[in-house]
């Protein structure tokens, strides 16, 4: 029966193609093994990683990268933790050297408490990295005009936050997300704020091309089960969006036919 539904087209980001529209972070898991299993259960094909200094005298223990199947997952390095454009640009260049990738999830943060992006610095860094040949996926707030500016600057995808990073508050302003989706031509990936599976479904039902999340899975009581829930929500939300939902109506509309109800006059 599945073949009665037209097949989904792969999601394209620059030269990269994905079947799954779920992007998962690799931070905050209790162990590398748990991370590996959560990634597998989520069905993701693209995972984010961070770039950090090697600590002095670090013991050679389990290596993070050994738990990520590079055949299965595309690595998307981020510039998380960078509070100015220059540091973010340097971090992106280092990650390119590490991974031989053009992909970067650009974050330039403006404030430690909210982790909201610095709009001007984000725009500046986007232009610089696009000019340097990067495929820039850029984290932004849900500001519609800023999203347009980032598209004009050459971003390959724009990634508005549903709510602050790691807050689990879901999609706080669906109107703004839908306005961004309406006005942009590049893919929009909702990034940050996902607390539970319905948040992913809501983002996808709004028409987002994808959703990126980390804490919602990694910090759930059962990360593996939540990873599976996120996969189902992403697929359900995408199918619901493609199906075309019914308009909301003010009054009831019976699903069963009116004529022939027992006891009604003939």
């Amino acid at each position: 029966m599945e073949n009665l539904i037209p097949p989904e087209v792969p999601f394209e980001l620059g030269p990269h193609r994905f079947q799954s529209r779920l992007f998962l972070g690799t931070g905050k898991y209790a162990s590398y093994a748990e991370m590996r299993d959560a990634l597998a259960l989520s069905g993701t094909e693209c995972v984010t990683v961070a770039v950090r200094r090697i600590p002095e005298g670090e013991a050679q223990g389990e290596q993070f990268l050994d738990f990520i199947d590079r055949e299965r997952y595309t690595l998307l390095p981020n510039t998380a933790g960078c509070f100015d454009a220059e540091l973010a640009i340097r971090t992106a260049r280092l990650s390119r050297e590490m991974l031989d990738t053009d992909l970067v999830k650009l974050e330039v943060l403006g404030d430690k408490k909210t982790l909201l992006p610095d709009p001007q610095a984000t725009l500046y860094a986007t232009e610089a990295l696009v000019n340097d040949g990067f495929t820039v996926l850029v984290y932004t707030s849900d500001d519609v005009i800023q999203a347009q500016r980032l598209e004009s600057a050459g971003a390959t995808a724009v990634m508005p936050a549903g709510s602050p990073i790691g807050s689990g508050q879901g999609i706080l302003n669906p109107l703004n997300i839908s306005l961004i989706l309406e006005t942009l031509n590049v893919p929009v990936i909702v990034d940050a704020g996902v607390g539970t599976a319905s948040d992913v479904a809501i983002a996808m039902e709004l028409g987002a091309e994808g959703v990126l999340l980390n804490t919602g899975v990694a910090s759930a009581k059962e990360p593996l089960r939540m990873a599976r829930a996120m996969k189902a929500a992403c697929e359900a939300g995408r199918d619901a969006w493609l199906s075309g939902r019914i308009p909301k109506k003010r009054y009831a509309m019976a699903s069963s036919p009116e004529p022939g109800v027992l006891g009604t006059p003939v």
Partner: protein
Amino acid sequence: MNSSENPSSDPESKEVLINGVPQDWREAWPISELLLEMGANGPGVAVERNGEVVRKAKYETTFLFPGDKIEVLRLVGGG
């Protein structure tokens, strides 16, 4: 030797900064050797010298200068 021009380093210093930590500089000290000493010679590592990425192919021919600021980074879990 790598290019002798090294505008960002401090010629008065006899130290190098490795990930922000000062270390005594020594002669004929290539990036490749530094990485070995740090146990950071595997894949998934990148090096910056005075704000510029050092390409992997140049690790053996790029020598540390006094006053250099070296950053050695690797990938960790993140969102």
